[in-house]
């Protein structure tokens, strides 16, 4: 049997400042070593200054993952030497001297399965190492401390996954949940990293470190299972070891054994007093917590009769569900949901496209209303949407400029229908004997009106004119 456990590191990218100083949590825009201060650079004499907002956000994540949350939390030092670590220790959390990390055990449902969360801890991210030079002999290592001290939440799971697909499903759910909470944007480069523990057939546990994205995490699990299975097949024992994910070659590589037996000499970080998390704070956080994805979905289905599948897609995406909330009314909700899930998500399938888009909630509202009042056909609305994204012009302006307005004048539509009937005598005869083929004629009318005719009235008029 395969068992996979995960340790997921997620940056709290939506915070203003780092975990222990006022440098920016969003370090990505800076030149190397410009987003640093005496505290995050570990200068002699500097002291950590705990970002209370980070504690709140991490507690919120713990609550959303149904984890226990202690009354007091503590920080510990994890001592080891590494050039990306300015103090040569990392301030993190630990549960070996009692439950003092932001989150204790919890669960999250993935399909029909419950995945157990072991703990959630708040810690600081180290800096970044950049390797330059071709051969190992003239290789140089550059250190950029801009990232050092960025707030990081580590989510540790029990080894409850049995397949890489379960891992992927879990990551999708987790990623949606974090976005929905408004605490992190997992799609930012380096915002989510993971380690995985993989064991097969009850054998030794192999730890895979350095997995830089969710996408690679599934691949790494897959590779590792295959590697272990092929060793089993050849009766080669599987060593308990740490392996690194090589994201260029997409394989796991054995690490030097030296790194395995590090003794981190954990002890309490005396510079940060215990933080009380009162019941009042928890209540406040709960009240501030955005509606969960599952309750959103249920509301969409029951309140607006949005089809289950559409509601599922819409509710699990923070950006689009927010857009939905802003743009829908009691009457157009279904239409808005429809436009978002069938059209908009496809048009804005990358971050760049989404950022370039000029669409606002009121565009969406107007467009849905225009469809519902018959000002524009559903078909033509696609063109309008395209144009809105590009130009940001108002819906009414676009309808008139692109001549997308419905052919609502019956006499005008009749003229076109008569034209089609006389051009397509063969098809008319066929329709008379087999009414199902009338759709071909509807299509012709739509073609002639560039999609502006209302399909239902076209069908009715056609039937009337042909006499069926």
């Amino acid at each position: 049997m395969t068992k996979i456990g995960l340790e997921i590191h997620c940056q709290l990218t939506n915070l203003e400042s780092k975990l222990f100083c006022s440098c920016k949590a969003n370090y990505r825009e800076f030149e190397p070593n410009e987003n640093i201060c005496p505290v995050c650079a570990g200068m002699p004499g500097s002291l950590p200054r705990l970002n209370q907002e980070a504690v709140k956000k991490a507690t919120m994540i713990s609550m959303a993952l149904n984890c226990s949350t202690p009354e007091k939390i503590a920080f510990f030092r994890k001592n080891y030497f590494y050039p990306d670590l300015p103090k040569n220790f990392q301030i993190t959390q630990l549960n070996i001297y009692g439950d003092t990390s932001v989150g204790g055990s919890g669960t999250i449902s993935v399909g029909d399965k419950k995945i157990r969360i072991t703990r959630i801890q708040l810690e600081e991210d180290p800096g970044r190492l950049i390797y330059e030079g071709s051969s190992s002999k003239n290789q140089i290592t550059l250190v950029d401390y801009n990232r050092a001290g960025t707030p990081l939440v580590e989510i540790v799971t029990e080894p409850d996954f049995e397949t890489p697909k379960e891992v992927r499903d879990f990551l999708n759910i987790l990623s949606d949940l974090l976005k929905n909470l408004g605490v992190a944007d997992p799609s930012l480069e380096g915002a989510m990293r993971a380690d995985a523990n993989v064991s097969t057939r009850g054998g030794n546990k192999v730890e895979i470190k350095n997995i830089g994205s969710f996408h690679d995490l599934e691949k790494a699990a897959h590779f590792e299972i295959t590697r272990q299975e092929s060793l089993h097949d050849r009766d080669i024992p599987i060593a308990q070891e740490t392996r690194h994910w090589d994201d260029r070659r997409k394989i796991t590589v054995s690490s030097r054994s030296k790194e395995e037996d590090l003794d981190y000499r954990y002890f309490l970080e005396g510079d940060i007093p215990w933080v009380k998390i009162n019941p009042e704070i928890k209540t406040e956080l709960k009240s501030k917590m955005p509606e969960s994805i599952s309750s959103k979905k249920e509301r969409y289905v029951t309140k607006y009769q949005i089809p289950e599948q559409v509601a599922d897609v819409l509710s699990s995406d923070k950006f689009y569900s927010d857009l939905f909330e802003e743009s829908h009314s009691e009457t157009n909700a279904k239409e808005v949901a429809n436009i978002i899930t069938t059209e908009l998500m496809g048009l804005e399938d990358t971050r760049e496209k989404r950022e370039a888009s000029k669409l606002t909630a009121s565009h969406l509202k107007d467009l849905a209303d225009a469809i519902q009042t018959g000002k524009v056909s559903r078909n033509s609305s696609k063109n309008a949407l395209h144009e809105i994204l590009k130009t940001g012009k108002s819906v009414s302006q676009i309808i008139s400029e692109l001549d997308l307005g419905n052919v609502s004048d019956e006499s005008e539509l009749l003229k076109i229908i008569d034209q089609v009937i006389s051009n397509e005598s063969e098809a008319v005869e066929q329709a008379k004997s087999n009414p199902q083929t009338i759709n071909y004629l509807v299509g012709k009318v739509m073609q002639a009106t560039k999609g502006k005719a209302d399909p239902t009235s076209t069908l009715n008029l056609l039937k009337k004119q042909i006499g069926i």
Partner: protein
Amino acid sequence: MNLKISALEFIEEAKNGNISVEEFVSATLERINSVDDKLHAFLSVNDNALDQARNIDKKIKSGEKVGDCFGMPISIKDNMCIKDTKTTCASKMLENFVAPYDATVISKLKKQDAIFIGKVNMDEFAMGLTTEFSAFGPSKNPWNIEHVPGGSSGGSAVSVSSYECIASLGSDTGGSVRNPASFCSTVGYKPTYGLISRYGLISYANSIEQIGPLTRTVKDTAFMLNLIAGVDPNDNTTVNNNNEDYLENIDSGIEGKKIGIITEMIGDGIDPEVMTATKEAISKLEGLGAICEEVSLEMVKYSVAAYYTITATEAGSNLARYDNLRYGYEMPVEGYEFNSYISKARKNFGPEVTRRMIIGGFVPSAGHAGKYFLKAMKVKSKLTKEINEAFKKFDLLIAPTVPILPFKIGEKIDDPVSLFLVDINTVTANLTGKPAISIPFKIVNGLPIGIQLMANSMNDKMLLQAAHALEKTVTLPEIPI
């Protein structure tokens, strides 16, 4: 120019224009020039001190608002950061480290127009109690230059007692302010943990250490405390003191106060002269209306072992950052793998620091934490419980600051274990977070003896009142230098 005046006297004189700050600072610099070759209190002297003094004189003359220190020359232990100034911790490791920011105590004193006359000597990274472990050579006791001045804030105590400045800031991890204060006959004070911000104090054992003033008088200490105590957003461990005025009612006396004499601190190994002095101090306090009786703190006998275990653990972590990658001294990186570079670079630590680093790597390690580090933490918490019990009955606790007289330079340097025992009376205040003060009490055979008073947490004001009462009963001979 009379350099022997107290801080409060200096301020009075400067404020009224009776002395010029420039002349005073100039005389202070001359004093440093003439005696420091012998004493070696200073590691560096402020080149801009005279300019700063002139500016303050100008402000005084023109009636501009002047900070409460009026240009008073203060020396600073070389483990506190002054922006753009070398801060070496008396270590080769930081020989060329120029601090990029001001410690909180420094920025507070700058605002009050203090003049930092220089950075003073210490045991390397504050590890030691004789100043012999300075990488730049020991300081000498001004009462007898063959003897140690105590440590680790030895430079602070020497500079104050020999009139090379009016006051000094030291740091006290296990007695590092009180011990040299006692050996050099100055007031030395370790406040309640958290009363003074440690931001910018280079950590040795951060969970128990505090910055503390060394001054000529208890009143001067109260004055300094008024300027530097209080909550600091840059140090999460600071406590709110509600802007307490420690000078107010300093003359309250100690009538009716209950004082416990800690049995374990006047036992085996105490010098008979120190014992006699302690008894004299007790009878003087009784003469002032205090009620003294013995109290036993059983955990005190384990306190030094616990202290060295905890401090080594924290030091091992606090000093890990000195890998020479970001700052430090010249040593090219080419050709090294980083682990070997760090190992080599860290050879610049001196012997005592190295010894404690090795202990600090061992006592909290996975296989040994239960036997050492966790046990030490247990002693710490039991000792705290015990002393809290004692403070239910007593207002103050008394003991000699150091059980022995200042010894000769080199006398104990090769015997670290016997050196450790010199800490026995001071580490309790650190392990329990309580305020403690050493008051100059007696000179015997030309060597000083200090008496230590301790109070419960946040009772710093009452402690200073009691210390002031005892101080008033004492007259000491002139320092021979």
